[in-house]
C-alpha cells in the first residue's frame, strides 16, 4: 500500500475477561480512515485493555478486530501494522535517540543510508533533529514524548495507538504537546485511537469521542454531540468541569416535580423517577421568584474568570457559573433560570436520556 493510505478500524463485539473480571463488554466501534478517535473514561474502565487488544498485546476472548478489510483478531502484533505510544514512552534506555527512532526499521533490515534519512525526517517532524545522539535519560519529559512519537511515525503504520501519552507531562507542556499531536495527526492523516481520562484532551483532539464506563461503551460522537446531547447520566456527569448539575425528582402528569421544583414537560415520558440535568454555564442566578425554581445560596467562590455559585435545593446542590462581578449573601433566597431547551431529563433507574424536554411555564 502507498503512504497516506488511511485504513479503517472496525471492532465487533469485543469481550475480555481477567479471570472472572469482565473488563471489556461487547465493545463495538468503527474508526474511519484518517479519523482521530479518543477513548475516554474514568480510571479502570478498560480503555487500556481495549487498546492493547487492538495492538494484539492482549488476546480477545470473543469478538473480532478488522484493519481495513482484513481480520487481525488472531494476528500477532508484529504483523498488524499498528504503532503504539505508551504512557511510559517505552524508550530503550541503552539506545540513543536516533537508535530508538530507527529501531522499527532496523528490525525490518532496512539498509543504513535509507534508515538514517528516514530517522532524520521523522526527527524533523517532532523537532528533535538536534538531539539524535543523546540518550533518553538526557531528555526532558516532553522531548522523550516526541522521540516516542517519532518512533511511531517512522514506519507509517496503518493505525496509531496512544495510551495516555501526555499524562506524564506538566500542565503547560501538555497543552503544547496536544496542539503538536493534533497538527501531526492531521498532517500524516493516520487513523488514530487515543486513550485518555482527561476530557479536555478528548474534546480538543478528537474527531469523535467514545466514552466508556465499566467496560461498556456509553456514547460515541463528535465532542460537540457528546457535550451538548449526552446519551445518559454517566456521559452527562463525566463531561464538563464542573460537571452537569442534577436535580432528582419525578415526572408526573406532564410535570417534573422536585424539591421546590415543578416544571412542565413535553414529550414521551410516563410517570417515573427522573433526574433533571443542566450545565453550570447554561444557567443564571436571578432574583427569587424570577426563575424556573427557587434555591438557597450555599456559597459563592471567585475562581478567576467566573464566580461559581453553589445553591442548595432540598438535598441536592447545584453549581452555577456567574460573571465574576456577581456577589451573593450566604443563605439568601434566589432563583435559577435557564433556557428550557438546555435542560436534560434522564430516567433515574436506567440513567438513559428521556425523549422529553422542559417547556417554559405557561407555554404548556
Amino acid at each position: 500500500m502507498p503512504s497516506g493510505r488511511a485504513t479503517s478500524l472496525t471492532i465487533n463485539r469485543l469481550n475480555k475477561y481477567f479471570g472472572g473480571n469482565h473488563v471489556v463488554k461487547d465493545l463495538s466501534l468503527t474508526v474511519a480512515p484518517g479519523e482521530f478517535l479518543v477513548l475516554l473514561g474514568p480510571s479502570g474502565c478498560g480503555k487500556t485493555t481495549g487498546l492493547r487488544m487492538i495492538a494484539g498485546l492482549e488476546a480477545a476472548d470473543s469478538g473480532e478486530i478488522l484493519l481495513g478489510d482484513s481480520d487481525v483478531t488472531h494476528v500477532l502484533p508484529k504483523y498488524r501494522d499498528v504503532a503504539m505510544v505508551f504512557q511510559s514512552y517505552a524508550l530503550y534506555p541503552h539506545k540513543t535517540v536516533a537508535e530508538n527512532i530507527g529501531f522499527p526499521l532496523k528490525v525490518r533490515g532496512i539498509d543504513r543510508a535509507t534508515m538514517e534519512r528516514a530517522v532524520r525526517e521523522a526527527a524533523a517532524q517532532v523537532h528533535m533533529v538536534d538531539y539524535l545522539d543523546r540518550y533518553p535519560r538526557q531528555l526532558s519529559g516532553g522531548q522523550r514524548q516526541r522521540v516516542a512519537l517519532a518512533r511511531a511515525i517512522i514506519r507509517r503504520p496503518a493505525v496509531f495507538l496512544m495510551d495516555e501519552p501526555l499524562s506524564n507531562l506538566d500542565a503547560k507542556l501538555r497543552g503544547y504537546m496536544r496542539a503538536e499531536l493534533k497538527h501531526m495527526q492531521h498532517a500524516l492523516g493516520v487513523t488514530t485511537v487515543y486513550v485518555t481520562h482527561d476530557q479536555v484532551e478528548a474534546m480538543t483532539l478528537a474527531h469523535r469521542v467514545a466514552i466508556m464506563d465499566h467496560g461498556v461503551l456509553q456514547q460515541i460522537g463528535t465532542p460537540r454531540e457528546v457535550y451538548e446531547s449526552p446519551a445518559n447520566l454517566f456521559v452527562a456527569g463525566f463531561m464538563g468541569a464542573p460537571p452537569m448539575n442534577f436535580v432528582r425528582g419525578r415526572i408526573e402528569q406532564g410535570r417534573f416535580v422536585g424539591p421546590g421544583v415543578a416544571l412542565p414537560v413535553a414529550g414521551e415520558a410516563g410517570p417515573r423517577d427522573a433526574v433533571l440535568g443542566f450545565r453550570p454555564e447554561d444557567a443564571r442566578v436571578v432574583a427569587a421568584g424570577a426563575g424556573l425554581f427557587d434555591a438557597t445560596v450555599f456559597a459563592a467562590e471567585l475562581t478567576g474568570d467566573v464566580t461559581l455559585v453553589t445553591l442548595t435545593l432540598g438535598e441536592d446542590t447545584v453549581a452555577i457559573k456567574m460573571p465574576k462581578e456577581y456577589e451573593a449573601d450566604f443563605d439568601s433566597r434566589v432563583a435559577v433560570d435557564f433556557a428550557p431547551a438546555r435542560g436534560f431529563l434522564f430516567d433515574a433507574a436506567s440513567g438513559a436520556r428521556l425523549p422529553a424536554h422542559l417547556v417554559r411555564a405557561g407555554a404548556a
Partner: protein
Amino acid sequence: MSIAPRPAVHRRWLEPARIGAMSPLGGIVAYGLLGLWAAFVLFPLYWVVVTSLKLPVDVNTGPYFLPWVDFVPNLHAWRGLLVDDAGPTFRAYLNSIIIAFSSTVLCVLIGSMAAYALARIEYRPRLVSILIFVLALVGACVAVGVAGIDWRVATAVALALFVLLARALGRRFPGAVHNGDILFWIISQRILPPVVTIIPIYMMFQSVRLLDTHLALILAYTVVNLPIVVWLMYDFFTKIPIDLEESAQLDGASRFLIFFDIVLPLARPGLAATTLLVLILAWNEYVLALFLSTSRAQTMPILVAAMNAGEKGILWWTMSVVIIIMILPVILMALILQRFIARGVLLGAVKG
C-alpha cells in the same frame, strides 16, 4: 556558655557528639573489630605472598615474617613453576581458562534465556507428561543397566514411548504445572550434591569417549551452575518494564531480537554480577574435575591438590605461587566487571 550541663565523663564516651555520628566508644569498638577481622582476612594472604618468596630453608627453619629483614626474598619458586616446570603449569592454566570461561559463557547464555522465558512466557506442561517422562527414563535406565541393552536403542524406544503416551494421555488429565514450579525445579537442582550424579555422568562420558576432555568439564560445570544463573537473572528480567518489550514487539522485533538487543543490555548489572559469580565457581571447582579429568584436561585446582602427593612433603613455596597466580584472573575479571555491577545485586534475588 551553653545552658545544658556538661555530660558526665562516661556519658561523653557513650553518647554521640553529633547527631548521626557514633559514640566515641562505639566507634573504637566498631573499627577495632572490623580491623581485627580485616587482619584475620589479610594475614593469611600476606603469608602466602611472603612464602612464595622464601627458600625452602627459610620455610623449614621457622617463621620469618618480613622480607629483607627476616630473610632474603628469592624468586626460585616462581622460576621453578613458571620456567623450569612451565609445561604442566601452563597446560593446567590453559585448561582452567578454557573450561572456566567457556562454561561461564555457555551457562550464562543458556541460563539467562531460560530465566527470561520463565519470566515472560507462560508454560503449562501437563503433569501426566512429566510422570510418563520419568517412568520412561527409569525404564530406559533399567534396560541399559540391568538388561544390558544398548543405550542408543533404549533412549530411542523410551523417547518414542514418551511421545506416544504423552499425546494419548495428555488431554485426558488436565493437571498442569506453572512457570513458578518450573523455576523452582530448576533452582532446586542446586541442592543435588555433585557426588550423587557424578558416577553416572562419569559412565556416560566414558561410553561416548569424552572423559578427560574439555567438553566434558564444560558441560558438567554449565549444568551445576545453571540454577544460579536462572535464579539471579529471573529476578532481573521481571524488573525490566514490560512496556519496552511490548513496544519492540509492535515494532516487529522477534523474541530473539528483543532478548539480545533490549533485555540483555538492560540486565547488564545483573549479568555482570552473575557472570563473575559463575566464573569464580567454575574456576575454583574441584570435585567434578577430580572425577572427570585425569591428565589432559586437568585444571588448576587439581594441579594444586596434586602437590600434596610429592614424596618431599608439601612444597609450600610452590604452592603459594600457584595460589597467587590462580587469584589473578579472578581479580582481573572482578575489576573488569565491577563497574557494571550495581550494589546489592545479590540482594534482589535473595529477597524473593
